[in-house]
């Protein structure tokens, strides 16, 4: 993959087995310091936003891991920390077995690239598609010597993201492209560095409904053919179910449930995952959904004690407000951080949960 020969550009050589751990985050925590301006007669207040707390995440070659949650759940903070755009307060990131800190920033970005939410903002309006793609190729020394090799490498990138015929797109400016085409250019730009990890933060939420699946399918092909490890950050649990192999559900800065996508959506074990599923629009539902919980996410400056979901949780037990629930295995690779799944409390809740068990 690190070969600078332009021939390897068109069809990257991949000998990485599917499932190999590429990027691993352990105990990732981010606290943002905030302070308000001193108000009349009041002191300056200081606080800490507990944006992200003790998140463990592994990205595997040829697999997509989705991080699902509402706004403010910390999902973007996680992806920014993985991209080293934000420095974690604590926790470690390991890339291909080596601590991320051991890499220089450029060497790290050579392996880990990001695709952003808004392709209208992430491309420079005064530069052509060619410039957007040639620059990372040059910076990461991914194209051979000479203009010819560079042009070939740019064309190869456009072909990989299905912008063909390439001469129709290569000299266009961003405003001449549709949203979907722009996002494809943004993906090509990320691929230009020759990454093994792609971090996609809401890559389709700004796009029109009819072209969203096209982008997801393209990312899916890159996963399958080039064995990229991918992080898919989204608020749309249905698209995560469609696209991701494994899913991590975050609430108020903590992981509440994780596991294989279909297990999580078809057999949710945490009340918050259930709430997300109930709230998602679903035309196949014959009767209107009834949401078990109400309200909105808590302040992260002063997060609730114990389980952060307990003030909204319809099934909360006394312990939920006292102690953070441990990660409890509820199936193969399926983990939920909920006291209701704990051996000591299981029996107290069977009656309460019987009514809302998934159909």
């Amino acid at each position, binding site marked *: 993959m690190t070969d600078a020969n332009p021939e390897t550009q068109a069809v990257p050589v991949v000998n990485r087995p599917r499932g190999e751990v590429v990027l691993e985050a352990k105990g990732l925590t981010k606290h943002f310091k905030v302070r308000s301006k001193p108000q009349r007669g009041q002191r300056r207040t200081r606080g800490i936003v507990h944006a992200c707390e003790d998140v463990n995440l592994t990205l595997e070659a040829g697999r997509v891991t989705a991080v699902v949650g*509402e*706004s403010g759940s910390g999902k973007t903070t996680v992806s920014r920390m993985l991209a080293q755009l934000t420095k974690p307060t604590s926790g470690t990131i390991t890339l291909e077995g080596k601590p991320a800190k051991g890499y220089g920033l450029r060497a790290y970005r050579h392996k880990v690239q990001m695709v952003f939410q808004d392709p209208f903002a992430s491309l420079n309006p005064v530069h052509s598609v060619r410039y957007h793609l040639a620059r990372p190729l040059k910076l990461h020394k991914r194209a051979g010597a000479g203009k010819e090799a560079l042009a070939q490498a740019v064309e190869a990138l456009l072909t990989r993201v299905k912008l063909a015929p390439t001469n129709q797109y290569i000299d266009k400016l961003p405003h001449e492209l*549709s949203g*979907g*085409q722009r996002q494809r250019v943004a993906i090509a730009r990320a691929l230009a560095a020759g990454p093994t990890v792609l971090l996609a933060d809401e890559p389709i939420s700004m796009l*029109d*409904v*009819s*072209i*969203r*699946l*096209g982008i997801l*399918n393209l990312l899916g092909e890159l996963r399958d053919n080039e064995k990229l490890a991918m992080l898919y950050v989204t*608020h*749309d*649990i*249905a*698209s995560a*179910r*469609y*696209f991701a192999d494994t899913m991590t559900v975050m609430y108020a800065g903590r992981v509440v449930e994780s596991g294989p996508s*279909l297990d999580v*959506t*078809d057999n949710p074990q945490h009340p918050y995952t259930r*709430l*997300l*599923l*109930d*709230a*998602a*629009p*679903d*035309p*196949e*539902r*014959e*009767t*209107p*959904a009834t*949401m078990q*919980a*109400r309200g*909105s996410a808590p302040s992260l400056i002063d997060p609730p004690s114990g389980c952060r979901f307990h003030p909204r949780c319809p099934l909360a037990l006394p312990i939920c407000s006292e102690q953070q629930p441990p990660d409890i295995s509820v199936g193969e690779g399926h983990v939920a951080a909920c006291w209701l799944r704990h051996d000591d409390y299981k029996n107290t809740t069977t009656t309460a949960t019987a009514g809302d068990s998934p159909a």
Partner: protein
Amino acid sequence: MSADTTDRQPVLDIRGLCVDYGYGDAATHAVIEADLTLHRGEVVGLAGESGSGKSTIAYGATRLLRQPGVVTDGIVRFTPDAGKPDETIDILEASPQQLRAIRWSDIALVFQAAMNSLNPVMSVQAQLIDTLAAHGRGASRRERIDRAGELLELVGISQDRLKSFPHELSGGMKQRVMIALALALEPQVVIMDEPTTALDVVTQRQIMEQIMGLRDRLGFSVLFITHDLSLLLEMADTIAIMYAGRIVETAPARQLFHAPRHPYTAALLDSFPSLHGERTVMTGIPGSPPDMRKPPAGCAFADRCKFALDRCTADQPVLSSPAIKADGRRQVACWLHEENELPEPLAAPEPAVQAAGAAPEGGSK
């Protein structure tokens, strides 16, 4: 609820609405001959991609278009009182006085970005009583403040938030304040332009439930504009699908979902991954919508359509009854319906009208 909408009288009836941006030869036709009827108490959903003209219909019909938008043709009949059909007026022909009388008190709007619609330097209370005072509601300031409190309670915000400024409220609360503001004068029609798009799914559902509950209690009609077809399918009575400035299909929500008749509708339905069942590869819709500055000659969807005929690229199809007969309230603009045989995805049998989906709302008025 969808079953009895035909017996109701139309409150807003849009016929042949055409809207251009720009003038003369340089004009872009943003909405072309749109027909849309909103009955009393009905929720009509208008779905389409960005740039399809769905918001332009709403702004054109309420005369809120900004330059260079021009309504070039059409009639928008508004019947203020159910018992007096002869008091119907054409909004497009109405005098400024007539318009002023209708606006907000009869037809109110909720815009997408509530944060941009509320005045950041005025408290919620001030904005609510301003609206009430401007339309001569309430005898005194005290009465108007009481009414403002009632309105906030109506949308599920406690009265002590009256003195709050917009920046002190969450996105969901701001959107609720906007809905309270829209309902302040008890309008008959509420036009909602992507009211929940910027919100989280949980907040979105809470607000949708609230809108539907208020609709049942107060009996207003809703024109709901969104790109999220899956949301409309759950809440709307009737859905109109727009593509490139034209309405290409209208049908009751259940029928549209179970038996789409236009290839675009079918493809759009296939663009929303499901929350159940097997994971299957879905394709979305290849290509992108046409450039409205240079519209294609025939059906605008032809070059993205799997089933396009030669005729599709030459002639513009018109809205008419689909090949498979329904109860007369379905319309589709597609040449395939004049062929002998429909492609399989468009030939699903018509679902029963009063099935399980309609039952829970049966008790509502």
